[in-house]
Every structure is written in structure tokens, then in C-alpha cells.
């Protein structure tokens, strides 16, 4: 591939390019498109849930369908919307922030995306085939083993495939940060978002295998008649809960830590000030990640683990408030005395602080084991985790999209529409979820499809549903904004925000596919800002102009994932009809064949010749 070949192309070539790409910037596009699609799907499910609860004893949807809605809303939003969008943002910015030309394993990067996509499609196919899973996103074994039809089987197979993809993404980012940093980019000069990506990847690495095993156990029990959760043969359903939360609690930090990193970068950029307490921020992130593995049983206070276990996990849980508090105060101190510029990206970051802090405080309340017996399985819990996941993760995703849209697509999102989205979403979010704290305290249990009249729950639920409409409106405005920007938006300069970090130091927006002709030399924290304040304005190259090594694109990741997808269908349906073993073994054999091809065919990549750069410069 030469530079000229990247110019104008037809739609077929465009499609083929994305199906075979190993470029981290294009994989970011794919992740955002895939994750965005599932975000809309999960959002529609949320609105359906809220419409069902708009008035007492509503019959908008049936009880069974309601169970499927809440299950799929949670599963979709966490595994198929939030995580992929985060992986997309990491792919878009992290390699640039450390001054790398690509990630350590470009092929694996692409495979990770396609596994997620096919896993997500498999999970959602359940709507059309046998009914969706209906045992809640936590799919507790006692409930999941009893669920008729194939819904839960789709949950097992879909998440297994998508989870494998996430694990690959995590390993890829870890190695990238360790080995691919540009000259001078020491660990303690990395932007906070890169740090957060690194630490999040550690969490992915150590959390996801527990889910893998758990899903295997459930699969063996449901599809092959084993007895892990079969109490009559000595099984124990609590094993599911332990393994699920050993994965599940780090998972919520996987969802929030990348955004902590992003907000740090955004606050620092738009306050035109160095991040306050950089070192403390790095170590607070590590501490949160470490403690995140020590608190899983606070989801299980009412299981009956005993007062000693409950006390230990309660104390560990409340301890997490300390590093989180350090972060909140450091963000405030970063803005203190800075020349703060408020635009759409910054609005999301500002809105995040109070929203997330409320979620954190209810978290400490829930962390008290004694009080938790009262809150458990009520709307108080629902309000709490939406305050952290929406107020933290979703706010962060919107912030990141506004901030990095020029990096991703070379254009700046419309500010007016961006602000409209923020305000309607912000108001709608608090309308929906603030009142749910009180609904929960008044005793409204979560996951029930109706509530009775005149129990003090009517008005609260109505307000909550109205808030959901506000949020839907905000998302629609955001979609219009995307289309508007794509059609009419102005071309963004390479450094539209007067940035501080290396992702703004490329020659154009979006960056060329090789990122940097010459790797930049980093001379300290906020490398680009240093060059600006010292009057130079651009990075000093760390190497002479030379040949650049690039990875080859490949169609194999797509085909491998397709093989696993077919095998997944085989696993699900072989319990009904032995013929499906053909799909099971066929899909596996096909995926294995693709792996052997990958292994046997040498892939040395290619070089962009120095002369091509020189010709281009003329």
C-alpha cells in the first residue's frame, strides 16, 4: 500500500478496508459504531422499561417480556455498549498519547473487535429466535438454571465470545504501553488517560477469566447436564455469585477508570493548567484498581456469609472512597485558578463531578453491611449504580466523543447542539434517577414489572419516566449533531483545543495512518505544552526520517470470529437437535483453520519508504 492508494475509493473498497483493517484509528471507528449501535438498542430497552413503569399496574408489556427487557438492558449497556465504546476511545487516543505508530498486536486488536461484534450479534439474535435471556444481567444460577427456552444459553455463548475479545484488547494495551512508548515518554510522563488505560487493562486481564470460567460452568450445566449448580447432586449456586462478582466488581472499575483518566486530561486542557497532583492521581488509580478486587462480597451481604466476612468487605468497600476523594479534589484543584474554558466537552466533565459524587456517597451507604439489608434489591441500588455508571461512564463517553471527535473524524462537533444535549441529558438523568433513591427507601423492589396504586410510588415513577424521555431527546439531538457535523462541519486543525499531549502533535486531524513520520521526543509531562511554552510549538523529532514499518491488514480476524459465532449457535441448539453438532464442530474447525493459516503464513508487514515521505513533502 502506498500513500497514493489511500486517497479516493469506492464503497466496496471502503467496506473491505474496514473489514480487514488493523489500524488502531480505524478499529476505534469500528468500536464506536458497534458500541454506539448497542447503546441505542440498550437505550430503547430502557425507555420501554420506563414506559411500563409510568403508572401503577401498567400492561404495556407482559411480565415475561419485562424480565427480558431488564436483562438485555443491563447486559447490552455494560458488555456491548459501554465497554466497546471505551475500548474505542482507548484505541483512538492511547497509542497517539504515547507517541506510537500502532499498538503492539494490531492483528489481535482487530480480532478483539470482531469477537465483540459477533458476540453482541449472537446475544441479540435471541430476540428473534427463542426469546431473550431473562435472569437479570447478573444471571444468578438459581434463576438461570430454571429459565426455560434458550435465552440464557444465548447469554452464555454471546458473552463468552465477546469476553474473549475484551481480554485480547486488554493484553494488547498492556504490552503497547510497556514497549511502544516514544523516546522520553517515561511512565510518569504518560497522560492520565494512558495510565487509566493501562490500569484498566490490568483489571480486564485479571477479572475476565473469572467470568469465562463462570460462563463455562453455567454452559456445562445447562447444555451438557453437569451438576455445578444442581443442588440435588451436591452443587452450590453460591459459586456463581462469587465468581460473577469476582469478575463483576472489577468490571465496574473497568467502566469508570478510563473516564477518570479522560476527565483528568480534559480538566487540565480546558483549564490551561497542569493537572493538580499528577502523582497522587496515578497512585489513586492504582489503589482503586487494587481495592476493586477486594470488595466483591459487598454484592452478597444478604447471602449469609457471616458477620466477619461482611465486616471485612464493608471496611474495604468504604476504603475506596479515599482514593476516589483524592481524585475529586485534584480535579477541583486543577480548575482552581486556571483559565477555564467551558465548551460541550468541559460541560460533561463539570456535570460529572456532582453526579458521580452523589453515586459515590450512596456507594458508601450501601457499603455499610447493616444498612445494606434495608437497601438490598430496592430502587436505591438501581439509583446508586445508575449515578455512577451514567453519571460517570456515560457522561465520560460523551465528554470523550466531543473532545476527540477531531482526532477521530477530523471535524469538531457542533457546540450549540452539544450544549443542548448536555443540558437535556443532565436534567433528564437527575429527574430519572434521583427520585429512585426515595422510591427504593420507600420499599419499591427492583426488577418487578408492576407496582400497586396509592402506595406513594405513583408520582415518583411518573417523574422518573419523564426524565427518561429527556435523555432520549438528548441522544437524538446528539445523533443529529453527528450527521450535521459529518455533512456541514468544518475541517478541524490538527490541534483544535490548544492541547497538551501528543495526540494533538500529529500533522493533521485525523492523523495520517502512520501517526508520526518521525517519533516525537518527550521532554516532560504534557510534552506538547512544554514545546509551546518554550516558543517552539511543535515536537522535536527523536529520530531521523527513515523507513516506517507498518502491519499488513487481514481478513482472518473477521473469519475467525465468524467461525466462533457459528459454533456458538451450534452449542446453543445441539440440546434440541443433534444435527446442530455440525455447526458446533464446523464452526470450531473453521476458526481453528483460520488460526492455523495465521500461524503458518508469515506476516512481516511492509515498509513506507523514506523516499515516499520526501516525495509527499515536495
Amino acid at each position, binding site marked *: 500500500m502506498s500513500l497514493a492508494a489511500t486517497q479516493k475509493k469506492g464503497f466496496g473498497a471502503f467496506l473491505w478496508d474496514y473489514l480487514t483493517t488493523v489500524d488502531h484509528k480505524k478499529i476505534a471507528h469500528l468500536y464506536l459504531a458497534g458500541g454506539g449501535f448497542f447503546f441505542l438498542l440498550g437505550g430503547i430497552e430502557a425507555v420501554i422499561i420506563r414506559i411500563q413503569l409510568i403508572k401503577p399496574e401498567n400492561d404495556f408489556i407482559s411480565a415475561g417480556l419485562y424480565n427480558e427487557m431488564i436483562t438485555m438492558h443491563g447486559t447490552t449497556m455494560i458488555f456491548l455498549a459501554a465497554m466497546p465504546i471505551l475500548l474505542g476511545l482507548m484505541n483512538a487516543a492511547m497509542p497517539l498519547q504515547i507517541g506510537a505508530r500502532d499498538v503492539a498486536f494490531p492483528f489481535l486488536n482487530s480480532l478483539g473487535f470482531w469477537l465483540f461484534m459477533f458476540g453482541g450479534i449472537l446475544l441479540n439474535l435471541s430476540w428473534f429466535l427463542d426469546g431473550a435471556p431473562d435472569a437479570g444481567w447478573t444471571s444468578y444460577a438459581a434463576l438461570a438454571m430454571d429459565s426455560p427456552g434458550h435465552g440464557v444459553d444465548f447469554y452464555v455463548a454471546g458473552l463468552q465470545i465477546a469476553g474473549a475479545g475484551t481480554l485480547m484488547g486488554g493484553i494488547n494495551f498492556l504490552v503497547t504501553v510497556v514497549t511502544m512508548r516514544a523516546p522520553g515518554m517515561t511512565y510518569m510522563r504518560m497522560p492520565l488517560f494512558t495510565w487509566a488505560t493501562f490500569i484498566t487493562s490490568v483489571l480486564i486481564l485479571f477479572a475476565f477469566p473469572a467470568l469465562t470460567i463462570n460462563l463455562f460452568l453455567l454452559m456445562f450445566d445447562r447444555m451438557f447436564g*453437569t451438576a455445578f449448580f444442581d443442588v440435588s447432586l451436591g452443587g452450590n449456586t453460591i459459586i456463581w455469585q462469587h465468581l460473577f462478582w469476582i469478575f463483576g466488581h472489577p468490571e465496574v472499575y473497568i467502566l469508570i477508570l478510563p473516564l477518570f483518566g479522560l476527565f483528568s486530561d480534559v480538566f487540565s486542557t480546558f483549564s490551561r493548567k497542569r493537572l493538580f497532583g499528577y502523582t497522587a492521581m496515578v497512585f489513586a488509580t492504582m489503589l482503586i484498581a487494587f481495592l476493586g478486587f477486594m470488595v466483591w462480597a459487598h454484592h452478597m451481604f444478604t447471602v449469609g456469609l457471616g458477620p466477619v466476612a461482611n465486616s471485612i468487605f464493608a471496611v474495604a468497600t468504604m476504603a475506596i472512597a479515599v482514593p476516589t476523594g483524592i481524585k475529586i479534589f485534584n480535579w477541583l484543584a486543577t480548575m482552581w485558578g486556571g483559565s477555564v474554558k467551558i465548551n460541550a466537552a468541559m460541560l460533561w466533565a463539570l456535570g460529572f463531578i456532582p453526579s458521580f459524587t452523589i453515586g459515590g456517597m450512596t456507594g458508601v451507604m450501601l457499603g455499610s453491611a447493616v444498612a445494606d439489608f434495608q437497601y438490598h434489591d430496592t430502587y436505591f441500588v438501581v439509583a446508586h449504580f445508575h449515578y455512577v455508571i451514567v453519571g460517570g461512564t456515560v457522561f465520560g463517553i460523551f465528554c470523550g466523543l466531543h473532545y476527540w471527535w477531531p482526532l477521530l473524524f477530523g471535524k469538531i462537533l457542533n457546540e450549540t447542539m452539544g450544549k443542548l444535549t448536555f443540558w437535556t441529558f443532565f436534567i433528564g438523568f437527575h429527574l430519572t434517577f434521583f427520585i429512585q433513591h426515595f422510591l427504593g427507601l420507600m420499599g419499591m423492589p427492583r426488577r418487578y414489572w408492576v407496582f400497586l396504586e396509592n402506595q406513594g410510588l405513583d408520582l415518583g415513577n411518573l417523574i422518573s419516566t419523564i426524565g427518561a424521555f429527556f435523555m432520549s431527546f438528548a441522544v437524538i439531538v446528539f445523533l443529529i449533531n453527528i450527521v450535521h457535523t459529518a455533512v456541514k462541519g468544518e475541517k478541524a486543525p490538527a490541534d483544535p483545543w490548544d492541547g497538551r499531549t501528543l495526540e494533538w502533535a500529529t500533522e493533521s486531524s485525523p492523523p495520517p495512518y502512520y501517526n508520526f513520520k518521525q517519533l516525537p521526543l518527550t521532554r516532560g509531562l504534557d510534552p506538547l505544552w512544554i514545546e509551546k511554552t518554550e516558543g517552539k510549538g511543535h515536537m522535536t523529532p527523536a529520530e531521523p526520517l527513515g523507513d516506517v514499518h507498518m502491519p499488513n491488514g487481514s481478513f482472518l480476524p473477521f473469519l475467525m470470529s465468524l467461525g466462533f459465532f457459528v459454533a456458538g449457535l451450534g452449542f446453543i441448539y445441539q440440546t434440541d437437535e443433534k444435527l446442530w453438532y455440525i455447526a458446533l464442530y464446523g464452526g470450531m474447525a473453521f476458526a481453528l483453520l483460520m488460526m492455523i493459516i495465521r500461524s503458518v503464513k508469515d506476516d512481516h508487514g511492509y515498509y513506507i519508504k523514506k523516499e515516499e515521505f520526501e516525495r509527499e513533502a515536495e
Partner: protein
Amino acid sequence: MSHDHSLYPETMPQNPEKATLEGKNKFLGLWFFLGGETVLFASLFGTYLALKDSTAGGPSSEELFGLELVFIMTVLLLTSSLTSVYAMYHMRNNDFKKMQLWLGITALLGIGFLGLEIYEFSHYITEYGFTFRSSAFGSAFYALVGFHGGHVTFGICWIIALMIRNARRGLNLYNAPKFNTYSLYWHYIDVIWVFVFTVVYLMGKVG
């Protein structure tokens, strides 16, 4: 990185498996992967420990296990770890033939281990009616030991594929990291077996 990947004894770098960025990445990536595998096996060990006494009226671990067979399996697998070290030693001396020889011996020892494990499983199933489905203990036992066996199987296929693929072209900077990552993986599988041997078989016999 040079465009010519072939290795000659006189120009060969000290550690061919880590001489290129790709090689370093593979090395590090595999270490991280093994970190994840540790959690994977820890989850299985936890499940096993929780369910090992849930025999549902079937045979218990004391009645089932015979330490003689497991001892031979252990010797085979641990020896294969040693032979893979010899193979890596010859790789660093750029002696391709001897590396292939020791890798071949490693694979044979692995196959021997696997054969005995299959015999062990079929013995339990036919003699004792102890299966994946007969009790929670059975499920947990076959899941843990079977996952390990699956990893051994994968390792054997991996090394055979590598040996055949590179049989005629010798070592170069492109394939040296591949042999090295295989060897790391193989050591790891042996370490896991040490834990399986202790937790499942020894503790099953006396605990």
C-alpha cells in the same frame, strides 16, 4: 530491525527471541496472558475446593485416585519441562537440529502424559461410573483436570505445527520468538500441574 531475518552463528544476537520489537511484544504479551490464565485456573481450583466433598453418594476422591499413575504422569510432564529448557538452550546457540530434537521429545512426553490422563478418565468412568454428570464433585474434577488436559493438548498441537512449519528453513528472528513463547506456555502448564497434583490428588488422598 533488519530486513533480512535469517540467523547465522556469526551474526546472531545474544537472545534471538527478544532481538526484535515483535519478539519482545510476544514475550511480554504471553506473560500477561499467563497472568490471566492464573485467574482462570484459580477460579477452577476454587470451584473444585468448594465441591470436592459433594459426591452425591458416588465414589469419593480417596476411593478413586491411585497415586502410582499420577506419579508417572507428573514425572512425564515435569521432564517435558526440562527438555523444553534444553530446546531453548539450543535455540540460543542457533543449533536448529538439536532444538527440533528436544522439542520433539517434549511433544512425545506431553503425548504420553495425555495418553495416561485419557486412560485415567476412562478408568473412572467405566470402573466407578464416575462421570462429568454423576455428582458435583465429578463435574468439578473433570472441569479442572480437563481444562489442564485441554491446555496440554493445545500445547502439543502448537509445537507440532511450529516444528513442521519451520522444519526446512531453520531459525530466524521471525520464528525464534514463536518457539520461545511456546516454551513459556509449556512451563506454565507444568506449574499448573504441580498445583493439580497437590490440591486434587495428594489432598484428595489424605485430606
